[in-house]
């Protein structure tokens, strides 16, 4: 039995599915962001896996993942700052109850 | 740059300098604002008069070129967009008209409140657009200036207006923008057919000389352009922005709008729609003649039952501007000359009307003629002005309306076909209806007993109001007494158009 490309894609696929499910179902903004992280992570895995298996001599996928992690970190930091700010203003992190900007 | 030696460009530069000057004023220094505005307006009048002299001199010296003072600067070479300048007799008198109305408008908004600086800023931006439109002969530049003239309207009405101003401003802007949309389609279409050999151009004269727009395309493009301009010219059934817009607009804006902006429509119809697409013009003239014929009578009848002074004048504008487009579609020099005279006349007298209405409204705070009466006792100067404006409107010889209308009717009657003649007779019948509604207003508003005792304490016109109205009255009288001076300037400008039409349309006497 060999560890083929396919075998790495499967966990990543499930991770992504879970991320989608979480993103759509959760009400808590932080939970939504956690789901987001899951999706990002699964994508990272795919990049790395494709890079490693299909183009072993090159490092594009790896660097892409590297940058993606950096950006994800930045984005999370900022998003959490916003969430905390919203919480400060509304004492609430439930995304369905923050309707001030609707319409 | 070479273009700065062309006096025409200063018609755009002066209002822009005025804008700049106003930018350095602030709202507490009303005196400075007034000074800047007056200096700008006076400079424009002086320049316009100088332009008339230049034109007469050029024509007197035997310069028979279609446009004088031509020069151009390329803006965007890939599409051949140029800042191309040039004027003929029609543009010259329109510029003169605009300058006088801007002048009168500045004095009519002397006590503008609130935000005088911003008001004059938009006011002069609008003037920039108007002058730019009249001096340019490039489709793109014209369209650009056209839009520059339209957009400030929204703010001027929306901020400084009265009554249901938000609705009116929105309606006016949307309807005129709708017209612009048609217009832009038309202009783009013209551009892409502007030349047979692929050297596409935006220059009106070149397009006209190339005469390359295929006939079946003309049939689409002509209605687009004509309706596009016709909306601004208050052509039935696209006139409904006019009553509401005028009713809500502040005095000077009504003046400028009815006095000049609506003329852009007529001017554009003639300069772009008919000149560039003579085939479609003569094929489709009957549709638009019918519409404008309806405009004339319909506007007049509608005016008969209105009770708001501004509505009456707005509908009367529909009638008079209908006459402009009507005459343009008659396709002969006489009628077209009449159309331009009518534009001049209507511009001045409607500006006068709106100025007077604004002044009366500023005192009585009502525009409903049922609430007023006997104003002649209380404010004789404004009363006399109103009567004069009314008489000009109903076509009293010696004032401008008469010469214009007569030229139109006689020109229209030159056409030998029954359809045009019947329309002419219908159009001519409007002189009676006009008399009815004008006299009705004069009788209700100025004569009779004073309706409201509070009105007895009101004052007559102040000096700047007198100056503003006197300018217009004198202009109206000058056109009325010496129409031939203007006819001589105007009439030659129509030869190219009439010649272009000659292949398709049997013109009597040619």
């Amino acid at each position, binding site marked *: 039995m060999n*560890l083929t490309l396919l075998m790495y894609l499967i*966990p990543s*696929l499930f991770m992504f599915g879970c991320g989608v499910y979480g993103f*759509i*179902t959760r009400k808590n903004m932080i939970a939504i962001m956690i*789901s987001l992280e899951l999706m990002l992570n699964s994508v990272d895995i795919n990049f790395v896996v494709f890079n490693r298996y299909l183009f*072993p001599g090159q*490092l594009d996928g790896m660097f892409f993942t590297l940058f993606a992690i950096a950006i994800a970190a930045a984005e999370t930091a900022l998003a959490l700052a916003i969430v905390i700010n919203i919480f400060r203003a509304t004492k609430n992190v439930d995304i369905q109850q923050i309707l001030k900007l609707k319409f | 740059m070479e273009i700065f030696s062309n006096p025409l460009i200063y018609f755009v530069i002066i209002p822009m300098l005025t804008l700049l000057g106003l930018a350095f004023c602030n709202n507490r220094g009303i005196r400075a604002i007034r000074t800047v505005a007056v200096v700008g307006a006076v400079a424009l009048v002086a320049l316009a008069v100088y332009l008339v002299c230049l034109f007469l001199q050029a024509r007197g010296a035997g310069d028979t070129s279609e446009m004088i003072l031509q020069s151009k600067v390329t803006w965007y070479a890939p599409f051949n967009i140029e800042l191309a300048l040039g004027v003929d007799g029609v543009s010259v008198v329109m510029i003169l008209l605009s300058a006088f109305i801007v002048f009168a408008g500045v004095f009519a908004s002397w006590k503008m409140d609130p935000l005088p600086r911003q008001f004059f800023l938009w006011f002069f931006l609008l003037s920039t657009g108007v002058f730019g439109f009249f001096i340019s002969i490039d489709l793109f530049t014209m369209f650009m200036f056209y839009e520059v003239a339209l957009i400030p309207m929204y703010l001027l009405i929306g901020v400084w207006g009265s009554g249901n101003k938000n609705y009116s401003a929105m309606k006016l802007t949307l309807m005129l923008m709708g017209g612009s949309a048609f217009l832009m389609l038309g202009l783009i279409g013209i551009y892409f057919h502007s030349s047979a050999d692929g050297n596409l151009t935006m220059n009106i004269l070149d397009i006209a000389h190339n005469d390359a727009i295929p006939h079946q395309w003309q049939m689409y493009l002509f209605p687009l352009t004509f309706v596009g301009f016709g909306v601004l010219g208050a052509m039935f059934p696209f006139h409904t922005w006019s009553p509401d817009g005028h009713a809500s607009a502040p005095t000077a804006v009504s003046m400028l709008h009815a006095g000049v902006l609506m003329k852009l429509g007529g001017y554009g119809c003639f300069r772009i729609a008919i000149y560039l697409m003579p085939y479609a013009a003569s094929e489709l003239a009957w549709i638009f003649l019918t519409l404008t014929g309806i405009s004339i009578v319909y506007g007049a009848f509608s005016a008969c039952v209105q009770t708001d002074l501004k509505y009456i004048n707005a509908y009367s504008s529909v009638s008079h501007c209908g006459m402009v487009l009507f005459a343009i579609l008659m396709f002969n020099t006489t009628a077209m000359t009449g159309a331009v005279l009518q534009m001049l006349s209507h511009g001045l007298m409607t500006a006068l009307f709106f100025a007077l209405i604004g002044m009366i409204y500023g005192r009585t705070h009502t525009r409903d003629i049922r609430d007023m009466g006997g104003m002649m006792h209380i404010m004789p100067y404004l009363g006399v002005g109103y009567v004069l404006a009314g008489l000009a409107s109903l076509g009293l010889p010696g004032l401008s309306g008469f010469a214009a209308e007569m030229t139109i009717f006689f020109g229209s009657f030159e056409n030998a076909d029954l359809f045009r003649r019947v329309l002419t007779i219908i159009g001519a019948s409007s002189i009676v209806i006009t008399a009815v509604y004008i006299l009705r207003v004069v009788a209700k508003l100025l004569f009779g007993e004073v309706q409201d005792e509070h009105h007895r304490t009101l004052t007559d016109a102040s000096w700047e109001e007198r100056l503003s109205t006197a300018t217009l009255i004198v202009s109206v009288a000058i056109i009325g007494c010496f129409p031939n001076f203007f006819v001589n300037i105007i009439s030659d400008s129509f030869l190219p158009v009439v010649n272009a039409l000659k292949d398709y349309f049997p013109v009597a006497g040619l």
Partner: protein
Amino acid sequence: MESVGNIILYFVIAIAIIVFSVLTVTTRQILRSATYLLFVLFATAILYFQMDYQFLGAVQIAVYAGGIVVLFVFAILLTHKPGADAEPLSTHRRWLGLSAAVLGIAVCGYAVFSHAAFCGRQLATVADLDMATIGHFLLSTDKWGYLLPFEAVSILLLACIIGGVVIARKR
């Protein structure tokens, strides 16, 4: 032919990833959710190690597991009373999420399996990827050089720092 240890390791990690992912999005206690996320991230790092990308794995642990999850925990503690449960999900929403997830897995899974030849590739051995190479690539402007994205990301990070300060600042 892989070593058995490798294969066992793979299965453990794959199962861990799947199980903890599911737990992350299904648990009703938000702090637990963050913890499960941490496990998933660790597992992912191990995957990277397994593929000989040690640097990447290290970054994954340092930034993700070490940085982001800590941020999450802070945020959660700032906004939640400890031990408070989230409200139960509405059935409607759950079905919505489930359908999207299943649909996504189905479509992508089909895509993956339909390219079996492609996916049957085996791991090729490559030269060790040392730090010097990575550093060289990151700061080079040659082919395969990543200086521009590197700088772009650094500016982005700067912007994020400023943004974070501005947003979080008390007015």
